[in-house]
């Protein structure tokens, strides 16, 4: 029997943009939530945002989950795949499958990289049956961070607190490729003292799109400007998101505007809110 089926068809409310409360959706929950996971930290977190990876480890360890980091890991291959360079993407994806072959859940702080493995590896390997099977096996074990927290660990309230105003951007691949929306929302809502500002058009793309941001910079920037106007309109001091590509994009745009709004990953928010050291409970 597979460990657990993914909850990829979670309904979310794309109109009112209201946060919906999540319910754990794990049939095996209560029997034996996993106590050990492999971390797929993603290339972007590894080299640009290592603090996000540290926060993931901190949060999981506080919940009694041991984290293993397969050392050879680099990238899932998405940048080349999205750019149309499928043979280059396949080479890197095969390497990824080799590194994450094995048992037990894999956790990643990225909806986009999880979507690459779960939704797009089958496309990439559609005419290579052996790789396809391996891809499906790894894909079944791979969870985005907030999805793992709620659906696998049954955590919807970590009991943390932070006195801060935040807005939450719903990253596209997390929202629409994985259908993971209620999970991050419930985790954010559970934090005491947090002033959550509703973000207009929170479901609309920030214009990142990987190579798109470089290939069509003017279109990408026009989309980013709309997003940042909406973010600044909330008056929130911190913007929270679930994917570091989007974070890099929005933070880079805010910095160019001279704004002091910080952009952080959901894992960082949860880490600070649940830190034993109360002095760290700020952003």
């Amino acid at each position, binding site marked *: 029997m597979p460990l657990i089926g993914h909850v990829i068809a979670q309904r979310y409310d794309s109109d009112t943009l209201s946060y919906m409360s999540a319910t754990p959706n794990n049939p095996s929950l209560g029997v034996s939530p996993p106590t050990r996971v492999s971390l797929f930290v993603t290339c972007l977190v590894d080299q640009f945002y290592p603090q996000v990876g540290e926060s993931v480890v901190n949060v999981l360890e506080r919940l009694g989950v041991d984290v293993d980091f397969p050392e050879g890991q680099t990238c899932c291959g998405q940048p080349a795949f999205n750019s149309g360079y499928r043979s280059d993407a396949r080479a890197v994806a095969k390497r990824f499958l080799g590194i994450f072959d094995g048992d037990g859940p894999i956790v990643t702080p990225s909806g986009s990289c999880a979507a690459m493995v779960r939704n797009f590896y089958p496309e990439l390997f559609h005419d290579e049956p052996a790789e396809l099977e391996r891809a499906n096996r790894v894909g079944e074990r791979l969870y985005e961070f907030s999805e793992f927290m709620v659906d696998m660990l049954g955590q919807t309230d970590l009991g943390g607190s932070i006195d801060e105003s935040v807005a939450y951007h719903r990253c596209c691949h997390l929202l629409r490729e994985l259908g993971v929306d209620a999970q991050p929302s419930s985790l954010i809502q559970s934090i005491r003292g947090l002033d959550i500002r509703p973000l207009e058009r929170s479901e609309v793309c920030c214009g990142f799109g990987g190579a*798109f941001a470089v290939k069509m910079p003017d279109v990408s920037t026009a989309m980013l400007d709309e997003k940042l106007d909406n973010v600044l309109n909330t008056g929130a001091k911190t913007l929270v998101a679930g994917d570091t590509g989007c974070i890099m994009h929005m933070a880079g745009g805010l910095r160019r505007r001279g704004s002091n709004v910080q952009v952080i990953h959901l894992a960082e928010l949860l880490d600070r809110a649940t830190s034993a050291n109360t002095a760290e409970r700020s952003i």
Partner: protein
Amino acid sequence: MKPQTKEFRRVAAKTMVDPRLQKALEGVYNGFYKGRIAAAEATDRWEEQREQGRAIKEHTINHLDYYLELLADNVEKHGGRVFFAADVDAANKYVIDLALSRSVKTVIKSKSMVSEEMGLNHVFEQNGIESVETDLGEYIIQLAGETPYHLIAPAIHKSRDQVSDLLAAKAGGERKERAEDLTMQARAQLREAFQKADMSVTGVNFAVAESGSIVLVTNEGNGRMATSAPRIHVACMGMEKVVPSVQDLGTMLRILIRSATGQRISSYVTMINGPRAPEEEDGPEEFHLVIVDNGRSKLLADPALREALNCIRCGACMNACPVYRKVGGHSYGWVYPGPIGAIVTPALTGLKQGKDLPYASTLCGACREACPVKIDLPRMLLELRGQVTEGHPDPTQRSSSFAERIVWKAWRFGMSSRGRFDLGARAARAVLKPLSVGGWLRRSPPPVSGWTSSRDFPLPASESFRAKFKRRQSKRAGKK
């Protein structure tokens, strides 16, 4: 119509600095986009009906030859004539020969995207036949000499002021301001055309195979007028527009109209079963159905792109698309804008010249979420990207630059070893650090220069996650 897909970047750039166009596009979100969501929420079993719509389209496209023959047989049974056109030239020739042989002087048209593919207005003009669009939006862009900006709202980019000017020029100078007056002015102009027209050309929203009916969905009533007043009616349809039965039509209409305008039903849904029967008092003497292929067979033959034929032209994907809402309809350079246009346009008119179109997307998935028949548009955009670089069966249609191939080979080399991955990041940091302020770059060399034109770019971190994790583990081992 000649594709202008090479111009994507140029037209997009112009659109994004045009405040009037941006204002018009901004309205799409609060109008059509929210309207669709509200209509879907108010509809029982909406998701189930989308599934059903998808199943109907999939089944029909997989048995397209059968249903097209059934349709043709039934249209002919009612006294209509059917012509299968392999391409737009054949379709145009049929329509023009018909018009000339029947001494047609004036044609009225009701909205038809396939007639835009055909460039039919232009062909009529060349043959000395007056052709007047009767859908108000189409009429406005015909007066402006432009192409549709949106599938269901072709003149959405025109301000009231511009419409005033266009109608006034037609009326010989009398300029109206209020929307009601403008509508009356257009109505008077169109009424004249309706009265003198010998022939009408309409589109087809759906054609029902089992009954031989063609179905038109309109809000202005011009479609019904066009199909009943003139003595000849010619309906043009892309060959994917057939549905098996009237029962299927019910599902398709429900999801089409809600997805297009947010209405539960449009003001008019017209079903036509051929020309006037002997016992009937009105209707056209002749009915012709022109079924156009024009490259659709290529889509049908390609399992990776066949799904594009499921499209029912509701426009929901472009309303949802944040790229369309910035670059507008004309950037896509042919008949079909937005995400579905970014797929069918290069596939039908040439991938080499349309190579920018599949890349004009962040793959955010909003189009797939909006699509009433659940077409997986991001998957097909990715498929076309793969065809652009290396996958197209015809090598002359591929177009990856040498520089780009080198970049990706280098990336692959770097990502294929943890050591090289770390080394690459350390080297990048060392090179970029002197150019940075507070850990961020304001300017950068290519290929990142596109990014830093408007956004700061972060330096790689001073230490990778792997290094941090290793230290953390050894510290912990030391404690034990």
